């Protein structure tokens, strides 16, 4: 019976960690979306100095988020996001048209990381 109780504990722990990781990803994603939306609107206004600061802030935020998320997401997906985040500063410097699309792609990658963790019927099967 002791073994059964241990297994119940492990089961609860697994479900707990799974749900908690979803919560952490959702919360961090919301923060990431907020930062990206802010960067896009600042860029559209034309405030390059503040935008550059915000991009720097986004890079720092992503470093922390990468560590948190790497326990549940495959590193290839995260590397794609890291690559896009790293491109933002040079694109802003060059005032490239791709800046906004790169921001949007980061948002989409982040959304994919979250949605890939959700146990939809199609994703389970």
């Amino acid at each position: 019976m002791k073994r059964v109780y241990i297994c119940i504990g492990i089961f609860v722990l697994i479900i707990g960690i799974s749900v908690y990781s979803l919560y952490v990803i959702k919360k961090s994603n919301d923060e990431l979306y907020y930062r990206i939306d802010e960067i896009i609107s600042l860029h559209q206004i034309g405030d390059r100095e503040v935008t550059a600061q915000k991009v720097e802030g986004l890079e720092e935020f992503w470093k922390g988020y990468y560590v948190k998320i790497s326990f549940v997401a495959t590193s290839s997906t995260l590397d794609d996001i890291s690559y896009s985040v790293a491109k933002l500063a040079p694109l802003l410097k060059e005032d490239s048209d791709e800046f906004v699309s790169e921001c949007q792609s980061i948002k989409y990658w982040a959304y994919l990381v979250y949605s890939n963790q959700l146990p939809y019927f199609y994703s389970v099967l």
Partner: protein
Amino acid sequence: MLIVFFRAIILYFIIIISIRLMGKRQIGELQPSELVITILMSNIATLPIEDITIPMIMGVVPIFTLVCLDVFMSQLSLYSRRVRKFFSGTPKIIISDGVVDQQVMKKLRFTIDDLMESLRSMQVFDIEDVQLAVVETTGKISVYQKQTTQPCTKSDMGITVPCKNPPQLIISDGDIEEVALNFIGRDRKWLSQILAEENCHLEQVFIMTCDGDGNYKLIRKEDKK
């Protein structure tokens, strides 16, 4: 992570059903559920090791999920005969009074070669000698020979001998096995006395066995050259 969790549960049942479908011949010595765990665990464990892009937890979660499931199911099997039957199947009588049940053989997809091989491994070379042969849930065959072909025992000859336990290992490489010492009804005081009589320190003992009557065998450690 929940995907891995649910996938592990689904795979567990799918493979259990598959193994049950494959029948007893494929199982060997493990119970179906144990075999499933063994196969899956060995495979799952290699995934995060081989592919470093997969987080380690993705290997740990399904392994723990499967092991927990197995414990739950074995606990359920204790209470429910139906569950036990589903997961392990039931033993089948294949030979009764020297007659092979061909229907059961067909059902189990046992060939006569399989059967004879199993009988020979039990030192039975003639089907006629078998009173009862049962194919266990693990796929092994248990054989009960006819009384006429069974070796003569002491009770057959009317010889009465006291039943006693085999000798226990009470000292292993200088360490006293307390459980074994208690089992034969002796204590440390008795052991110290014996060692003193033998003029041997505890550390010098390699193996010491003793039975319930106090008959012991002491093997000393070899001197280091």
